[in-house]
C-alpha cells in the first residue's frame, strides 16, 4: 500500500452522506440481479456514520442550497475551512458562528455576524427551526 496524497480534498458532511446513500442504493440495485455479500466492517461503519450524519444539519441540505449559501457569503471573504464548518454546523446564533471564524474581531462587525446568521437560516432552511420562528412571529411562507 502506498499513500499518494494523505489529504487530497476536504469533504463536507453533506457529500459523505450523499455518497453513503448512493453506494447503498447501488448495492441494493445489484442485489436484485445477483446476491452480493456486504463486508461486516463496511456495514457497521456505514450504518453508524449515517446515523450520526442524519442527526446533523446536513441531512436536510441540497446542493442548490449549498451553492446559494456560498454565493451569498462570498462577500465576507471567509476561508474554505470556515465555510465548510458553517455548512457542517449551521450556526444559529452569533456565538456559534464566531467559534468557527478565526480572528473575528478584526474581520467581522457585529452587524456582519447577524447578517451571516440570517443568510444561513434563510439559505439552509430546516423544519425544526419553524417552532422558534413562529414564536418570533416571522414565519416564512414558502421554502
Amino acid at each position: 500500500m502506498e499513500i499518494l496524497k494523505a489529504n487530497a480534498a476536504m469533504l463536507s458532511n453533506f457529500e459523505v452522506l450523499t455518497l453513503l446513500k448512493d453506494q447503498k442504493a447501488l448495492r441494493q440495485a445489484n442485489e436484485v440481479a445477483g446476491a452480493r455479500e456486504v463486508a461486516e466492517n463496511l456495514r457497521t461503519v456505514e450504518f453508524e456514520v449515517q446515523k450520526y450524519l442524519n442527526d446533523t444539519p446536513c441531512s436536510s441540505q441540497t446542493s442548490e442550497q449549498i451553492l446559494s449559501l456560498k454565493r451569498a457569503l462570498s462577500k465576507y471573504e471567509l476561508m474554505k475551512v470556515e465555510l465548510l464548518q458553517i455548512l457542517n454546523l449551521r450556526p444559529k446564533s452569533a456565538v456559534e458562528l464566531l467559534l468557527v471564524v478565526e480572528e473575528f474581531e478584526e474581520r467581522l462587525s457585529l452587524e456582519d455576524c447577524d447578517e451571516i446568521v440570517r443568510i444561513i437560516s434563510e439559505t439552509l432552511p430546516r423544519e425544526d427551526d419553524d417552532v422558534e420562528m413562529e414564536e418570533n412571529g416571522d414565519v416564512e411562507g414558502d421554502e
Partner: protein
Amino acid sequence: MFNLAEIKDTIKIEPSGFRKPKAQAITDEINRKYANKVLQDIGLCIAMHDILYASEGFIHHGDGCSYVTVVFRLVIFRPFVGEVLTGKIRSCNQEGVRVTLGFFDDILIPHGYLQENSEFNADEQVWVWMYDENEMFMDLDEDIRFRVESEQFFDTSPSVRPKKEGVDTPDLSANSAKQAPYSLTCSINGDGLGLLSWWGA
C-alpha cells in the same frame, strides 16, 4: 471532519469475485480491506470514494487470484486541529469527559480543558460547570460541542508494540496495551462550547 486520501494498492480478487463486474469486485475488496480501519497518520477509513486507475489483472504462479494495481480515493474521518464538532457524552470520570460520535469513540476532554470552575460530582459521577450561581450538569448522552486540540496515533500492529516491563501475567488481556490507534484530545473551554443546551440551541 471528512477528507479524501489518495492511495495506491494491489488488490487481490479471488476467483469467486470473477462473476462480478470488475469495478464492483475492486470496490468490494477495497471496502473489505479498509472500511472502519485506522491508517497510521491518515485517519479512520470510512468507505471508498472512487477508483482513479486500475491495471489489468495479473495471475501469479500457483494461485488463481487476480491481482490488480489500483489507485483510488478513500473517505477518511480526520478532523483538523481547531475544528469544532458535535457529539454525545459517553462517560465522565475524574480524568475528564469522554465523547462519542457513534462511529468514533476515542475522544477525551481532559479536566483541564473543561470550562473554568468545573467540578467533578462524585455522587452523580458527572462533571458540573459552576457558572455564577448555577450548577450546569454534564449528564450522559447530552449533545456537546467541542474543539479538537490535538490528535494521537498509536501503532497497534503486533510487531512493534513495546513489551511492558514487569507485567508478564498469565492474564493475556492485562498484557495487551488497550490503547486506541487514533484518538482525539478536545476542549470545551470557550464561549459557545459545551452542551448545546447551555447556549440555547
